[in-house]
């Protein structure tokens, strides 16, 4: 499951962007932030917690995207594909 940012809640504070180990987070045209589901591994392979959720000051803003469910193996495979071993 990739994460997604609820744009209605996002303040555009940018705290999440540098914390993502996959550089999946980028700015939108109107100063908010978004997650590329192809790059997000839910931090699997790097950290125990989703970094964007851990740093985001607004509750329920960086959340799992129910439209994009993946299991741990898939996520790990994604990580390996993106970064190698």
């Amino acid at each position: 499951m990739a994460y997604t940012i609820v744009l209605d809640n996002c303040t555009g504070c940018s705290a999440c962007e540098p914390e993502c180990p996959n550089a999946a987070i980028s700015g939108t045209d109107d100063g908010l932030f978004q997650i590329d589901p192809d790059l997000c591994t839910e931090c699997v392979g790097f950290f125990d917690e989703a970094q964007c959720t851990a740093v985001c000051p607004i509750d329920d803003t960086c959340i799992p995207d129910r439209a994009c469910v993946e299991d741990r193996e898939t996520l790990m495979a994604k990580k390996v594909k993106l970064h190698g071993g």
Partner: protein
Amino acid sequence: MDAKDQNFLKVIQGPEAEASGCSEKSTCGSSAGPADMDPEVWNKVKNHPCYSEEAHHFYARMHVAVAPACNIQCNYCNRKYDCSNESRPGVVSERLSPELAAKKVLAVASEIHQMTVVGIAGAGDSLANPDKTFKTFELISKVAPDIKLCLSTNGLALPEMVDRIADYNVDHVTVTINMVDPEVGERIYPWIYYNKKRWKGRDAAKILSERQLLGLERLTARKILVKVNSVMIPGVNDLHLKAVNREVKKRGAFLHNIMPLISEPEHGTYYGLTGQRGPTAEELKHLQDSCEGEMNMMRHCRQCRADAVGLLGEDRSAEFTNEKIEAIEITDVAYDMTAREAYRDKVEETREKERKIKEMLAGLGMENGLSQAPPILVAVATQGEGMVNQHFGHAREFQVYEVTAAEAKFIGHRRVDLYCEGGYGEDDSLTRITQALSDCVAVMVAKVGGCPKKTLEEAGIAAVDAYAFQSIKPSLLKYFGEYTEGVRSGRITPKAAGGQTKIRSGALTGTGQIPLSVIG
């Protein structure tokens, strides 16, 4: 007025701005100057408007909001909006890139020669955005090497940043330390983000506290000046702040600024929504007084916004919006060092004069056995220059002095809404003023209308216009004599202690346009 006083007043009137009233002890910030301060420290702070009470009448500072991200959550902060506690704009306010920020500094410094300090204090935490913060410093120091740089931080990321701070020649750092005990801290900070993890409760507070104190030690070891800010939260850390005062002093902080919690439900902060109140003016003063013996306290802080421009208490940021700055070509701006130096020379002369005046003032008012009379609080409406020179209805804030026979000591500013502006209905705003000044026996003004005068008097506050356009401090000392005489003859009934004086948000963040004319 006798001849001696006439002469005396002649000396002090005129364009010389007078420092807004400190005793010879180091009672407010560094105002007392070289006598009681390490010369190296004095040298660093003397032109810093936030640190030197004397300087804050002459020099201006500017904040650039290049750092939107934060790594902790405070219960008095709602990061969507402007925060009056940490004096930072909300992340939704104007945001600056380092490049734009440097441009803005240049444009402002060329226009306002008093501008000597640039700080980064938000919108989030300056050190949670190290690349943006240090890039900004780098660009500024290239174009304007005479400008001092400073930053504010919650301290979590501080210990590892000290070397970089020193590299960029940042000589003033403000660390907000609200507690040194995790049990207190867990009621202030719901969580922190540290080492790739979100920490909560007591663990979070413990890490934060350790990091803050370690950062403070490392800064002072590098001879970087550190001011500590604390937000006073009644029932949470009010009693504890004395311990904070001791710990930060021990680690070499040179100034401790205790600020009142500003908490209204409409701010949407945890404290605002749960009804946590801020301290009354009396409670704040009492705490500041009890910490005073231990360390320099700073009473003139008005919690300016992180994007503020101008003298303390004056915000000219509306003149320098992103749009306007973007339109400026860097090559159009003549950065005139000579003009800036000339301004500084002039100010130094004035300040020398002032120091002499202060010496002369020390003895005034000691006759007539007044020295035994208890101190009174008096509010003053002023536009600056150390004079009673503002119309009651134009005052957006008042300076409050504690006056005895021997001295008139500045103890802080009280914000009020502009009485003349109406808006809420004039009666209403007048009530707010009488509340804000309820511990004062009088308010000195340049002029006051009949109606407000009557209302003030009903609230036990004399509206005094007899000292219009005279210097504040000698006027206060003279008034003290008058008042004490009045009490003795039964003409004036002394005020009973109320203890309920309401503190209004210190930041001048009123809706819409920002006033240009308020100078402390």
